[in-house]
Every structure is written in C-alpha cells, then in structure tokens.
C-alpha cells in the first residue's frame, strides 16, 4: 500500500504552485472580482501552455494522456490560489462529459479544442432554487431541439459550448451538447456571491443540440468524477485559509501576548486542522478510486465532496473570525476564500445532495457486498 503522490506528481505540484504564485496572486483574483471581466485570459492561456488543461486527455485527442491523479494535483493548486478561470467548468465537467459519453466523432471534434482552451465548456444543470432533481427536470429535447431555462450556469457567459442536462424524446434524462453560438440561445449575466467565478442564466429556445448519452447513471457518474476534482480545489482553498489564520495568530498581539497563545484561538485552529486532515485523507482515497475506477468510486466521491465542503466552509469562516475586525474588510483577502468556499460547495449540488448520495451508496453496498468501511 502506498498513500502518497509519486515524486513526479509532487514535482508537478511544486511547479504548479510556483507558477500560480507568480501568475495568480490575489490581485489577479480581485481584478476579475471587482471588474466586468469574466475570467483572467492570461492565466487561462498560461494553464493551457503549462499543459494542465490537456493533462488528463488521452493522447489520441491531442492531450498529454496523464491520469486523473495529475488533474487532482493541479485542482488542489488552482483552489489554493483561487484561480479565476473556467478550469473546472471546461475540464472537470465539459471535457469529462465528452470523454465519458461522447461518440468517437464528438470526442474528435471537442476534446482537442477543450483541452487546448480554444473552446470553453460548462455544465448546465440547475433550473433555479432547490436541489436539481430528475423528477422535476424541465429542460426538454424534442427532435434534436432543446427548450430550457438553466440557471445558474457557472461560466455561462463565456462558454462556447455547454453540456445540458435535459429530458429527451424517450423521457429519460440525458446529457446534450449545445453549441452556445447557435440560434435560440439567450444569456444573461447574474449577480452572484463570488464574481471571480461569474454565473449566468441561459435560455434555450428550440436550440439544436446533439445527444451525448442518456440515463441517470451516466449523469451521476459525471457528477461523481467531477466531485472529486472539485473536492481537491476545496481542499487547496481550505489549506490556504488555515495557513492565513495560523500566520495571523502568530503575528497579532493582544493583552501583551500573541493571540495564537490563547487556547480559544489555538483550539479553534486545531479543530480546523483536524477537519482538514480528514478532508485530505478522504480526497486522497477518492483520487485513487477515480484513477483506478474502483467499485467504491461513488461512495468515495460523495465522501470526499462532503468532507471538502465542510472543511472549506469551516476554515474560511474561522479564518475571518481569527482576523477579527480586519477579517470583515473588503481589503483583506479572507473573504475571497469564504466566497469561493460557498460557490464550490454548491457548484454541482450542495452538501445535502451529496450526503444523500453517501447514504444511498452505503445502502447499496450493504445490499450487495459488505462495505469495506
């Protein structure tokens, strides 16, 4: 048994961290947050040049053919640096969907472009308030034409294509590929809690779409795989928030002492560390399950996802608390992590949805083979 990343993967991590430290400071994040920009094009181009967008794409579709494990390493660093780019939408969601369910022709058409950042993709799942539900799914495809109102769609304003969850002629939910420059697509930018990752409403009216694949199982499979990659982004962000809090607690004096010498602060930070360690272990296990397509991937994914959402929320909010009044200012970076923590925890369904998946997977495992846990 070996529970660590390989030397090559650790080198990739160091390289990514160094690159992002130089090209993705919080000033870069703020530039997108505080302006009408939708993403940082220079950084996006940089991730393409570094080979990150094409890392897990097979070589036959002009990718680097590395494993999902490398993508996890990159995701953690992107999360850590709050990268204001459509990496998750385009790579974990759109490219993964094509890879998972696309025909050979669709893969040839889309994967090279997605992997080289020439095309930006996203997933259009939500139709408004409440957990996405197959029972209540409104989006409808008839004779290859989609009618739907999808909101919010992350990176919806800048995406060139979207994977749309809709009900087809057969009545089954499926994944449909929509070219967003096609006729019958209207988009509107929405105000959101983290505008360094903008959200849009997209209305499809008789828009021509292609079927990628049908069935709930396929959609769940896509979300499970993406959940692990998003969990690594969350892990990276949570880790950074804890570091910020520890550093401040060591530097700030009150009552003649470093505030980090008071147990009220020390114990808070210890609890953050404990949650983070649990999250890290769950993420690592899930990365392995993802890379090996292990049977317990769905359970491992849901576990990592819940763990990561909880860890990032705890670390980002308590980081603010440790900073006291300054943590409540726009000027201090602490709120950037707090924003991102919430956006990432809701992006492919919130905690409740993923906790439900944990328990339903446990029930499935119990009904079949005994669970490993």
């Amino acid at each position, binding site marked *: *048994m070996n529970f660590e990343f390989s030397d090559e993967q650790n080198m990739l991590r160091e390289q990514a961290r160094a690159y992002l430290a130089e090209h993705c400071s919080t000033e870069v994040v703020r530039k997108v947050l505080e302006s009408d920009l939708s993403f940082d094009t220079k950084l996006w181009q940089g991730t393409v040049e570094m080979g990150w967008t094409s890392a897990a794409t097979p070589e036959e579709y002009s990718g680097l053919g590395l494993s999902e494990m490398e993508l996890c390493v990159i995701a953690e660093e992107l999360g850590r640096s709050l990268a204001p780019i459509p990496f998750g939408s385009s790579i974990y969601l759109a490219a993964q969907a094509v890879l998972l369910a696309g025909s050979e022709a669709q893969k040839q058409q889309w994967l090279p472009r997605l992997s080289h950042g020439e095309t930006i993709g996203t997933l259009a799942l939500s139709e408004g308030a409440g957990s996405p539900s197959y029972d209540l799914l409104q989006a409808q495809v008839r004779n290859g034409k989609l009618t739907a109102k999808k909101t919010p769609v992350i990176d919806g304003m800048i995406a060139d294509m979207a994977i749309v969850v809709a009900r087809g002629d057969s009545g089954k939910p499926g994944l449909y590929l929509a070219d967003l420059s096609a006729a019958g697509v209207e988009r509107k930018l929405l105000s959101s809690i983290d505008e360094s990752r903008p959200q849009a409403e997209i209305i499809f009216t008789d828009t021509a779409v292609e079927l990628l694949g049908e069935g709930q199982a396929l959609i769940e499979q896509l979300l499970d795989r993406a959940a692990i990659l998003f969990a690594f982004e969350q892990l990276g962000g949570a880790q950074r928030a804890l570091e910020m809090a520890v550093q401040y607690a060591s530097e700030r004096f009150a009552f003649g002492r470093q505030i980090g010498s008071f147990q009220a602060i020390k114990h808070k930070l210890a609890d953050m560390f404990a949650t983070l360690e649990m999250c890290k272990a769950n993420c690592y296990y899930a*990365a392995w399950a993802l890379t090996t397509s292990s049977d317990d991937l769905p359970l491992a994914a849901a576990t990592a996802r819940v763990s990561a959402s909880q860890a990032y929320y705890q670390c980002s909010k308590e980081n603010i608390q440790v900073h006291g009044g300054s943590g409540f200012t726009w000027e201090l970076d602490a709120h950037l992590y707090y924003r991102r923590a919430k956006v990432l925890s809701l992006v492919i369904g919130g905690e409740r949805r993923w906790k439900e998946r944990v328990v339903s997977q446990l029930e499935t495992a119990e009904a079949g083979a005994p669970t490993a*846990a």
Partner: protein
Amino acid sequence: MDFNDTKEEAQFRQQAKQWLEENIVQFKQEFPFEVGDNVTDSQAAELAKAWQKRKFEGGWGCLTWPKAFGGREVSIMEATIFAQEEAKVMPLAGMYIITSGMAVPTIMTHGTEEQCKQLLPSIANGERLWCQLFSEPAAGSDLAGIKTRAVKDGDDWIINGQKVWTTLAHVSDWAILVVRTDPTVAKHKGLTYFVIDMKSPGVEVRPIKQASGESEFNEVFLTDVRIPDSQRLDAVGNGWRVAMTTLMNERVAVGGAFSDNVEEILEVARTTPLGQGRAIDDCGVRQSIADWYVKAAGLKNIGLRQLSTLSKGGVPGPEASVSKLVLGIGRQDLAAMSLDILDMAGVLAEDDAMGWGSHDFFRTIGNRLEGGTDEILRNIISERVLGLPAEIRVDKDVPFNQVPSGA
C-alpha cells in the same frame, strides 16, 4: 498511490491468514469461548496470554522485534497486516495493547541490554501481561505533576503513593511506573521511570466503577513497595523523557484501531419505524448518518496514510492526535444519535442489538478523556503541528514542592 497490497504484502497476508485459520480452530478447542461470552476479566487475561504463547511458538508472537529477542524484524506494514487478519478471528488481541504497544517499545528504547534480556522473553511467550501506572488523582493532563514518591534505600527504592485509571491492573503481572524521585527540582526534572512486579508486597488494586457502570479501570495504592534499583529504566531524573516514548506509542496504539459502527447505526435506522415508514427514510436521519460516515471514512483513511508513512520508515507524528480527537467526539455524537433515532425508547438500556447505543453513550465519555483529553490533544496539534506558542507555564523552573496545588 495504491491502496491494494503489493505482491509481497499479499503473500504475507496469505501466510498470516493460513496460520490463523489453522491455529484458531485448535485454540478454540482447548479454550472454548465465543465473542460476546461473559468471560471474566481474569479469564480473558488467561485466554489472551495463552493466545500470545501460541503465536510466539508459531513465530507470530513478536513480529517487529529484533531477532535477538525472538522477533522476526518484519516491517510495520506486515505487522499491521497480521493484526488486521488477527482481529477478524481473535477479539482479545486488544488486551496486549499496553504490553506490546507501550511497555515493549519503552523497554527497548530506554532499557539496558540486561533489562531487555530479563523483561522481554516473558512478554514474548505470554507469561506476563503488563499495565501502566501513570495517572494520579491530582495529575491527569498535567502528568508531570505526579506525587507518588520513590525514596532511595540502599540498592532499593521505597515507593509510596496512589495511581488511578489503570487499565487491566487487576489482571496484570507487571507494570511500567513513573514516580517522583526529587521534589526539590522543577516538576519534569524530578521524575524517574521504573518497571514493577504487580505482586510486590504493598501493591493494592481496587476497581473503579465508571459512569458506564463497568469497571475497566482501577486505582492502585502503593504502600512502602520495595523495588531494586535494577528495575529503573534510564537515569534518575530522566523519567519524563522515558514517559514521552510510552505516550507517543500510546497515541499510535489507541488511534490505530476503531469500530465505526456504520452498519449498526444503519441497522437502528432501518428497524425503527418513523411516520409511515422507517427512520432510514427520513432526510434528517440520513443527513446525520452521512455526517458520521464522512468522519469514519476520514479516520480510516488517515489511518491508512499513517501506515503508509510508517511503512516508508517515517515516524508517527503528532498528527495521530487528530484521529483520537475526531474519534472521541464523533463516537459520542453517534451514540447520542442512535438513542435519538429510537426516540422515547432511546431511554432503554436493554441488552439487545440496540444496546450498543446506550452503552456507548456512557463509554465514549471516557474516550474523550483517556490517553490525552480533547483539550490536551488540541494543544498538541496547535503547538507541535501548527507551531503556535506553547502554553504559559507558571510552574516552569519552580521547585515542585513550591508549586501551588490548590490543596
């Protein structure tokens, strides 16, 4: 990253399984018992010792020990593989946690060659079970504040004082012991570490009745107990350093194994009616179960990570404190959850399939206290992992006999 056994590990597991399967059958014929039998503690100790003897004779008794002491010098990974397989067939292996997990590494690290030769063989062959005489009524988290005195008398030491929370003291043959040999120096500096025969005159063991109703722990009274200087481990005044070796191993031993009760809580939820259906159909119940599972999985995966570190020759770090912290609080909440699912009937403590919840509701109180309280663990994490300032110590550099004790 690979969570499967390597080829060598799989081979070792196969050998372990084979030996266990062959021997557990014979063992149960000689010593008939079943898991959950109401065996007394002394019967359990006899069984555990007999099992240790059999393992020793079969070459599985002290896998990681040096060959010089009858060990096989296998890796920690292999030892863990054996322990995993053993736990499936032998529920009493846990009785050796203090003996093998704490006393042995301490003796090996700090004992002379002579002491190792004298003490280790009787542990290896199942003759002696050990306990740990550390905590005192006035020294729990502040362990270095112990008051039990050892006074030199010729080549012997005379021990007087009281120890508490001693697991297995009533069935143990020997013990590791920390005492104060010099009250005129600062508290950490006046301690010395000994090993002691529990049958020595003047050793009296009295059981403690816990809030859970059971008696797993004891008070141990030491009255004019005479032990030879040859039973001292390491130098006079070095007791704190030696005790640290024991405690670091304790956190590894305690944090290593746990039952997550996931199947049990699912069973409670499945068999309890709620509204038109069952508790397991209720969203709130499902969310709470998921919360626990995510923690249980995290603990399991942290354990695997630690194992992976150990297998590469790394040392167990203070990160092990995380597991113990999360486990104690988590299992207490889990027990409370199981009672809440049963609702009004959750007040019952019948000895049936649901009985674990009412038992654990009390037993887990102790999980958060034994082997380092939640608060001490948080101090360890924040100071040794996160690098925050150590607690302000008003008793530092003050002679122990001048430290305010509130008494």
